[in-house]
């Protein structure tokens, strides 16, 4: 017993020192990141998605490869539209994707303490990206039953920054729906959702029970319209705000409503469009709320074509 106690007293610090040395010794060097990033950069193709695992190394990935990561990729709602996934991996971590279970990696390459993996993603063709196309849409505010167009404005410089400020205003290019209420605009932004996850989305703050609308003309409808939306983290986390409704209509007929209640986070709707019996149509998004204060609603959507049944690659 005495010897065991003394052995423990000797072994424990040695083990702790060893564990510390092992942990510090396995930290990837910056040169590893540069080599791995150079490799990915050389191999990148259009429709490739790049991500990091574990997520805490994401800033390092963006430092080295950020020029290849547009806002739409960093703030994606899911992996639709991407053919392949590149993962910069440390500590043996694997990515957790929003909607896609991963098969085995088709390529693995070691760079010191880092690993680069490449996966083939299931084909989900994006026919129309509503976030990308927002400047081509028509924006309007319904007031007293009449439609008042929101004008596309350019210029201005966003003010401030910091906690609790949310999306900074004015956004440089925007549909301005009410100059007196600067949050009543429509534009693409990056906003964090209830999980602090970045979402590249269309800001469409409600003004009240009468909606703010955004209408896209002649949209290819495909087989499915995927619509996702949520509120700015600090406006949703106390779970005391009013619900927000986003009505999605095709050629004036309501197709679905995303009813967002605080606590829902980034909420997603999959709307089948094949049954509409048309290949193209005008799609409008109408956002309203009974209590519009601090209802910073932002959404992303796309139409997609399901792959033809058959053998998967």
């Amino acid at each position, binding site marked *: 017993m005495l010897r065991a106690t003394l052995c423990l007293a000797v072994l424990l610090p040695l083990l702790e020192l060893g564990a510390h040395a092992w942990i510090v010794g396995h*930290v990837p060097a910056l040169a590893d990141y540069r080599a791995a990033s150079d490799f990915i950069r050389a191999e990148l193709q259009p429709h490739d998605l790049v991500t990091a695992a574990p997520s805490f190394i994401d800033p390092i990935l*963006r430092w080295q490869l950020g020029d290849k990561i547009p806002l739409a990729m960093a703030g994606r709602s899911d992996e639709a539209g991407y053919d392949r996934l590149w993962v910069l991996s440390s500590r043996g971590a694997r990515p957790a994707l929003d909607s896609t279970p991963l098969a085995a990696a088709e390529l693995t390459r070691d760079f010191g303490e880092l690993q680069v993996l490449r996966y083939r993603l299931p084909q989900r063709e994006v026919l129309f990206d509503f976030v990308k196309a927002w400047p081509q849409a028509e924006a309007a505010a319904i007031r007293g039953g009449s439609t008042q167009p929101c004008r596309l404005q350019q210029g201005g410089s*966003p003010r401030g920054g910091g906690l609790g400020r949310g999306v900074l205003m004015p956004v440089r290019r925007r549909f301005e729906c009410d100059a007196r209420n600067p949050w009543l605009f429509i534009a693409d932004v990056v906003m964090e959702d209830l999980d602090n*996850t970045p979402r590249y989305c269309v800001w469409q703050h409600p003004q009240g029970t009468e909606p703010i609308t955004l209408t896209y003309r002649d949209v290819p409808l495909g087989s499915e319209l995927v619509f996702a939306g949520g509120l700015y983290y600090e406006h949703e986390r106390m779970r005391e705000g009013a619900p927000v409704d986003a009505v999605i209509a095709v050629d004036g007929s309501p197709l679905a409503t995303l009813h967002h209640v605080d606590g829902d986070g980034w909420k997603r709707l999959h709307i089948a469009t094949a049954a509409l019996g048309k290949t193209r149509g005008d799609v409008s998004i109408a956002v309203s709320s009974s209590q519009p204060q601090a209802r910073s609603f932002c959404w992303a959507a796309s139409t997609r074509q399901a792959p033809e049944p058959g053998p998967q690659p």
Partner: protein
Amino acid sequence: MSGERFGRVTTWRDHVVGLGLGVAYVALLLGTANTIGLARDEGIYVQAAERYAGWLSLLARAPGEALTRNAIDSAFAFNHEHPPLLKLLFGLGHLTQRNLHPFTTDSLAFRFAGMLSAGVLLWVIYLFGTRLYGARAGLFAALIYALLPRPFYHAHLLAFDVPITCVMTASVYTYYRSLESPRGFGPLCGLVFGLALLTKHNSWFLPIMFGVHFTFCGLLEWRSRRRSGERRLTLVPSALLWMALLGPLVFFGGWPWLWHDTLPRLKAYAAFHMHHEYYNMEYFGVNYFWPPFPSSYAWVMTLFTVPLTTLVLGVGGAGRALAVLRRSLFPAADGGNTQYDPTQPSLLVIGVLLTPLLAISLPSTPIFGGTKHWFSAYPMLALLAGRAFEELCHLLPQLKSRLQPLWALGLGGLLLAPAAVETAHSHPFALSHYTAAAGGVPGAAEKGMNRQFWGFTTRSLVPFLRQALPNGGTLYVCDTIGSAFQMLIRDGHLPASFHITGDIARADFALVHHEKHFAEVDHQIWTTYGSVQPAHVLLYDGVPIISVYENPRAPSRRTGTR
């Protein structure tokens, strides 16, 4: 070695040793402070200290004027949610620097009083440990406390967390001594308690802890007297009486803010801390900002931030102490033969250890302070580790070695080594530091533990900023408060050509201190700059601490460094 204590009477030699420990620690803190930037709270206390220093100058110059309500209110209204003792001492450091320039930087002058308190704390731990378990245990306890990574960081700061740990530990020590020597240590305990009240509100727990302990001792004494008729402990709570007398006197006498509108201001002070606002704190990937808070927080954070060997020794020592305590309560278990210490030091040490941890474990208690809100537990943990070390040393002769003292020295060095290595490695990123139990810094990052707070790590960006912006520039500095950033300039780390702005869009560079809830600032920058690519990322053990973004719309001032 099975008793409550196996220490000895402290002598002047012990005070010399304690003083030496304290001086060496302060010297170490002075030598390592330069790489730690001012934290958010420090920036506020600098402003308070400058005002209080102005009042002290006025008091020396024109006492009558200084004691008017107008002069008192204009100096002490700022930051009146915290008592003034430390801010007055920080202010004295500032006055000393202004007149005599003994410090190499202004921030050191402000911080010196906090560092001194850390040195005094080691002195007290050594004395307490020597008294309870012997000089070797006392020395080991002081050293193992000095080598706790997070307290080592906080010991550099002009803040209240280490000073309140110092005066609370001194209160515990003087209270304990008063049980045997009420005439000398009773008043001293009252005085130290008053200083604790003047330091921080954590001191409110002291009378409760001492009250419980004294009641327990009194009940055991009463039982003992009934059985044997022997008087071993006075039933007059001398220290508590002196605390009740001197505590309020020192508190009110030392806080000029309370000299006018006393009751409303006292109520406001209490209300501020009873209904403190909540800040964000990440724990296992969840950003907690509102109750209920996780009850496991203090325990897991202790496991993840205190070196494992230190923790095991402390828990081992606590186990031994608890066994003694159990025999005190149930003397029949060992035939009633053991002579028990009527002052019950095990109960006192374990009680003081557990009280802050249990208080933080209440779902309603905010957790935003990280580990610093239960720092008063750590000197007790160190004392118990000292006890365990002493007991281990007593096992050594049974190895039949003639080199027993050297074995003890070697064992002590080995047991302290992980703490020394971890603490050295944690500097100057101690709030980002996690021990091997958490998987180190990257392991904790992967688990979703808080990365940092207070924005002090901007100091570590200075080499990059000087190189990237040789002619200076405008920075958005995220969580770094303006006065903390100005100290980088006052201390000469950055030239005066650097300025800060609250507008991300107007900055040349925008910083993000990586904490979960600061993701918002990342995204504000992405939208404003149209890019997700930082120009630089400050790393600690491969974990991002700060991302720096370059504004593509600002006139380029960079020299180009990647």
